[in-house]
């Protein structure tokens, strides 16, 4: 039994360590128990005033936070009422509470030394310039992308590249690939992603293998991840931005990746464990060899041409004389 427990524990730890996520497992907070009772599962039960009748009803998906998920979240050590108003202790909750202003990340984290490593100030500056903030000022906030009840801080640089891409893109796709979630923040019609990216030469390949934010954010030097999401019209559309020696991807997705020298020296070889980017990955050895060979061929041709023209000239002069 202990043996199986140990194996399961190791598997659990290895799965989490592969994904690069920190196991928090905060202890359950007694004050949160009444909240979790309803909000911890997909179905909740309400009782009539005399307690004789009860109804089992589905909880709106956006209001469900399983206990385990909350315990593992970065905010898992907080009481629900640390963020939510005291009025929520009344059940059913008064509708008016839903119109209360909710906290944003900045309310707790901005300007504090303790949170300096998260670059919150820079994130807020970037976010304020973003299309999310400008076009959806009344409906958009931090929580639309980062669920405070399940959010775990993961430095994408510490993840395997595929895991970093999946994690990053899943945040965007939550709305951009869901008609319902998209409608919650925008009146516009959600576009089919493959169609809106069909101008790319290999749309599917790009959507699967790079992060949305690699093209759809402005460069940011001081923040962990740029939060200045650009409108489609201002996002990167020139292939050359990534498919060149100064590939933007080396400053974004691959910025902290180790350099793998490989058996032949390639430019931008830090990406080559994962991808091969035309224009960015050039074989330097072959480039040098081919340049030398080509110059040699041209030199031989020009020398031959020089002597041939001289010979023909002399031959012509000889004939005319």
């Amino acid at each position: 039994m202990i043996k199986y427990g140990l194996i399961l524990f190791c598997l659990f730890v290895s799965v989490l360590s592969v994904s690069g996520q920190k196991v928090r497992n905060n202890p359950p907070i007694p004050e949160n128990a009444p909240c979790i009772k309803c909000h911890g599962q997909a179905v909740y039960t309400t009782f009539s005033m005399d307690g004789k009748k009860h109804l089992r009803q589905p909880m709106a998906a956006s209001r469900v936070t399983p206990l385990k998920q909350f315990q593992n979240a970065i905010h898992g050590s907080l009481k629900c009422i640390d963020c939510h108003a005291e009025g929520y202790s009344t059940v059913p909750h008064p509708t008016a509470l839903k119109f209360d202003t909710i906290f944003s990340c900045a309310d707790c984290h901005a300007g504090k030394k303790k949170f300096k490593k998260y670059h919150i100030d820079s994130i807020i500056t970037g976010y304020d310039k973003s299309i999310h903030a400008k076009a959806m000022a009344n409906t958009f906030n931090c929580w639309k992308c980062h669920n405070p009840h399940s959010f775990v801080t993961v430095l994408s640089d510490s993840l395997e590249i595929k895991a970093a891409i999946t994690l990053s893109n899943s945040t965007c796709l939550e709305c951009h690939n869901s008609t319902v979630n998209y409608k919650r923040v925008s009146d516009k019609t959600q576009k089919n992603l493959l169609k809106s990216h069909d101008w790319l030469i290999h749309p599917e390949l790009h959507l699967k293998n790079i992060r949305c934010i690699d093209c759809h954010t402005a460069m940011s030097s001081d923040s962990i991840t740029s939060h200045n999401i650009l409108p489609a019209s201002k996002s990167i559309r020139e292939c050359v931005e990534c498919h060149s020696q100064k590939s933007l991807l080396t400053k974004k997705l691959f910025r902290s990746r180790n350099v793998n020298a490989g058996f032949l020296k390639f430019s931008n070889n830090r990406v080559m464990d994962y991808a091969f980017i035309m224009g960015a990955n050039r074989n330097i050895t072959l480039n040098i060899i081919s340049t030398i060979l080509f110059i040699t061929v041209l030199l031989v041709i020009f020398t031959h041409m020089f002597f041939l023209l001289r010979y023909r000239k002399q031959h012509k002069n000889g004939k005319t004389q």
Partner: protein
Amino acid sequence: MEKLSNSYPLWLRLWHSVNGILCLTLVVTGLMMQYAQPEKILISLGTVIYIHNFCGIVLIISWIFFILANGLTENGTYYWPKKTVFKESIIQLRYYAYGMFKGEPKPFKEDKTRKFNPLQQMAYWSTMYIFLPLMVITGFVMYNIERLLIDDKSIFVYQICDIIHISAAFMISVFLVIHLYLAFIEGVENLKKIIFKSKTHEEND
């Protein structure tokens, strides 16, 4: 010696012109793709890639046509090098390096069995039967990367394809430069012959 009649039939002249334009376009666009820089945009890289891909597909069709036409006509027989090709190549090389400056006659003349000199034969044969197929196959793999690359290990296949593609393209570029130069030294008549007009070919010593 029996002279070669109609050495450049219409289909061959048409194919040669199309193939030449395609190869030149592919070399230029290929270089633009390989050495693309954000600050040096003449045409967008996307457009360059579309042109490259389009010409690549037409080149595949053109190559298949060439192989079929060579199989159906006697033209194919002129490309296959004989056992003596290396020995004869040295004689031809000596002519280019020395003999032609001394007014010596061409060591290998066109006749019923020979259309190309041994160096031409080797160059054309290796270009059409080694480098072009290599380039076409690797180009096809890279063009269909979305369908053909299914796991992470396939990245390595793609890298190898890219190296082979570029190396073969380099060899074809070198061939093109030398081919154009030798066509140039043969004179305008020679160019006319392969582009515009098919006629009974006179020995041009």
